[in-house]
């Protein structure tokens, strides 16, 4: 691994008796508390590379498991604020996070995808306040620099992740994590997997380029204007929050991002030589 890449957490799962686990994604630790040993094991396995017991949590959730058969995950997700509490809900879960106490609860079935969604929503909320965002994109680190590949489902995110050379480390093939650090941006690995069904590496690297994927018969990198890049970026940012101030903050973050990070269109065919162009 390059020296520019920082290792963020222990790779080994925890085997302690506590009901609490700290899952640290993108350098933001979230404490999860469950009194169900089976579900705790499931969390340990699912977020194995992202458990960070020593980290001081940015917020904490108490998980209450409910019966599986009454919930639906095909409903639209909603995130809205009541006073100082953020409410996150979908057919298969409800959660609340009080930002003053930095504590809340999750009511969900034992389906791990529900917890994935709550974590994604919580991170998108916390990131929006810090100038970062989650992006529907694959990302990988090569030679100490991170590359993002944004695209809708079927655009080729998983394909380009699969074609990555041996010296590239996959951060995710589905949901990329971006935060401003100093004058630039850092991309972080996430456990949120797409078709590759493989958790990303828990490390971070300075973001070099964001590519917007286009399927083509030949491989080529094409320039994109900042305005088009901002529009494309906004299309791929995961943001569920019904809040004018936060929406404005994310819009401003996207504009600031394309002004500071190199962006381009990447026309590609499913061929490993595409990585010779990328860098």
């Amino acid at each position, binding site marked *: 691994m390059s020296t520019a890449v920082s290792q963020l957490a222990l790779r080994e799962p925890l085997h302690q008796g506590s009901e609490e686990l700290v899952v640290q994604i993108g350098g933001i630790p979230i404490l999860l508390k469950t009194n169900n040993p089976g579900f705790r094991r499931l969390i340990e396995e699912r977020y194995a590379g992202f458990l960070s017991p020593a980290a001081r949590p940015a917020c904490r959730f108490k998980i209450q498991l409910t019966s599986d058969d009454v919930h639906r995950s095909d409903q639209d997700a909603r995130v809205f604020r009541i*006073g100082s509490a953020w409410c996150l809900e979908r057919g298969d879960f409800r959660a609340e996070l009080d930002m003053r106490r930095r504590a809340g609860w999750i009511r969900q079935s034992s389906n791990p995808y529900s917890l994935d969604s709550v974590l994604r929503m919580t991170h998108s909320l916390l990131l929006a306040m810090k100038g970062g965002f989650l992006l529907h994109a694959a990302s990988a680190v090569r030679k100490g620099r991170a590359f993002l590949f944004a695209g809708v489902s079927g655009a080729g995110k998983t394909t380009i992740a699969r074609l990555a050379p041996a010296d590239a480390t996959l951060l995710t093939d589905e949901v990329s994590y971006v935060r401003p650090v100093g004058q630039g941006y850092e991309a972080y690995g996430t456990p949120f997997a797409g078709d590759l069904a493989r958790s990303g590496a828990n490390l971070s690297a300075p973001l070099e380029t964001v590519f917007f994927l286009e399927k083509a018969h030949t491989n080529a990198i094409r320039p994109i204007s900042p*305005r088009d890049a901002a*529009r494309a970026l906004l299309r791929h940012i995961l943001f569920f929050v019904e809040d004018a101030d936060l929406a404005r903050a994310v819009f401003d973050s996207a504009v*600031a991002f394309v002004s500071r990070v190199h962006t381009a269109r990447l026309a590609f065919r499913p061929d490993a030589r595409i990585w010779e162009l990328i860098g």
Partner: protein
Amino acid sequence: MQTVARLRDALKRELAAEILQRFSALRFVAYGTSMLPTIYPGDCVTVESFGSSVPSCGDIVLCRRGDEFCVHRVVRVGGERTDARYILRGDALLEHDPPVLLRELLGRVTSVLRRGKPVNLNWGKGIGQRVLRSMVRRLNVTSAVLVGWHGMLARESLRRSAEKRTECA
């Protein structure tokens, strides 16, 4: 920083035009003082696309000139429908804007909310309204006083809302 601000503003306008085209309505918060005393900075303005109708004299319209947007009133229409030239002017201004074509007009202002209450968009015909408009056009200080007074009322309204919320809690 200036580049970022320019990009942000251009993108906002582009998206606003698209929203209006796609959903036939757009709501935004006004800034600027060219439409005083009808529209104040901070008013919530709703614009609807024209549909099959055409703008006429007295309508307040959203106009796009290149990358710039403005909300002004139609004061004169010349020519036929397809190549009609529309003359616009801000209620607070003495000078007309350069003529524009129908395609440069994005929609008609259908409502303005000030502190949650609807505002009458028509030119007031009373003597008081006429005097006020004339003063706004001729004396910059009138605009400054109106904006200051309006700001004071807005702050007072916010304070009352906050008090009500605290009482409810």
